[in-house]
């Protein structure tokens, strides 16, 4: 069954087809299992909806109900009065302040992000503070720009002394186990 035929079957179930067309669909349904199944499914669905749909009733008649709404709109338009909103003077003043404040906050965040991620590294940014904390050790620091590496080479002061005296001894493993 194609879509058009299915719609036609649905219209027939809803009693919306004129006489000749209704008879054609009725004949189709009686001779076609697929169409018959669709009809029974549609009727079942309609039965569920009819049995379970909550009916909401307005206490007034529909005409009176809608005329009340229309009259209220006309009254408000005529008096130039709007529905009371929380737009008191304080609220309006606060809002006037908050609009530029939000913009300023956004600009500051973008600026901070730009500064953090895109600003070129200054000399002070790259400055390194090094300090030997052991009297037994000395250090040499250097930066390998190509390998993006900052190296601190540590050696025992005794080593220098020993080298000076041409009595080199292998370093003891002070740090490495």
């Amino acid at each position, binding site marked *: 069954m194609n879509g058009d035929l299915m719609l036609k079957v649905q219209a027939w179930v809803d009693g919306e087809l004129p006489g000749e067309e209704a008879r054609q669909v009725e004949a189709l349904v009686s001779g076609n299992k697929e169409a018959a199944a669709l009809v029974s499914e549609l009727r079942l669905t309609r039965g569920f909806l009819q049995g379970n749909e909550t009916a909401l009733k307005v206490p007034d008649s529909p005409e009176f109900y809608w005329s009340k709404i229309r009259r209220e709109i006309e009254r408000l338009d005529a008096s130039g009065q709007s*529905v009371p909103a929380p737009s008191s003077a304080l609220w309006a003043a606060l809002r006037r302040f908050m609009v530029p404040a939000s913009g300023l906050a956004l600009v500051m965040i973008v600026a901070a992000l730009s500064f953090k991620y895109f600003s070129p590294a200054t000399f002070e940014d790259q400055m390194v503070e*090094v300090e030997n904390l*052991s009297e037994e*050790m000395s250090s040499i620091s250097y930066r390998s720009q190509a*390998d993006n590496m*900052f*190296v*601190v080479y*540590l050696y025992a002061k005794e080593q220098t002394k020993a080298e000076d005296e041409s009595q080199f001894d292998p370093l003891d493993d002070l740090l490495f186990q």
Partner: protein
Amino acid sequence: MSDLSSRRRLPWPVVTAILLILGSPVLTAAILTIEAKLIWATDESKSPDANHTPVDPVTADRLRKTFKWKNYFIVKKMTKEVPSRGSARFDLSKKCTVEIKELEGPRVEVVLIGEGKPVHRAVKPLNKGESFVYSGDDKNETAWFVMITDLEQK
């Protein structure tokens, strides 16, 4: 109608508050994910310690370009988060510990501790991808390295 237009307006106080809340971490500090590796360098092709594993080829290439040794083995590798304005301790061996503190800047303070005693302190910015390396000679023409890398800034 004025009622409808007022409803469509953005709640600017809320927008401002959200922007400031989102922006405040940017203006303050970062949580660092730091990897610390204790590396042993030698010209021998194998380490006598079966627990040592060769460093990854990229790191090995970087180290070979700067240092003379042919082969580099990981003795211990640790990854920890260093909280904003806080510190983390990396115990890389019984004798070797590194303490890293996140400072304003953002910069890091690295303190190398040997056998429980502070040996060296450095304060520097640690940029993403950059490595801070402590090195020293070891027995039989070998060397040790402590390689500190900022993996990710949050």
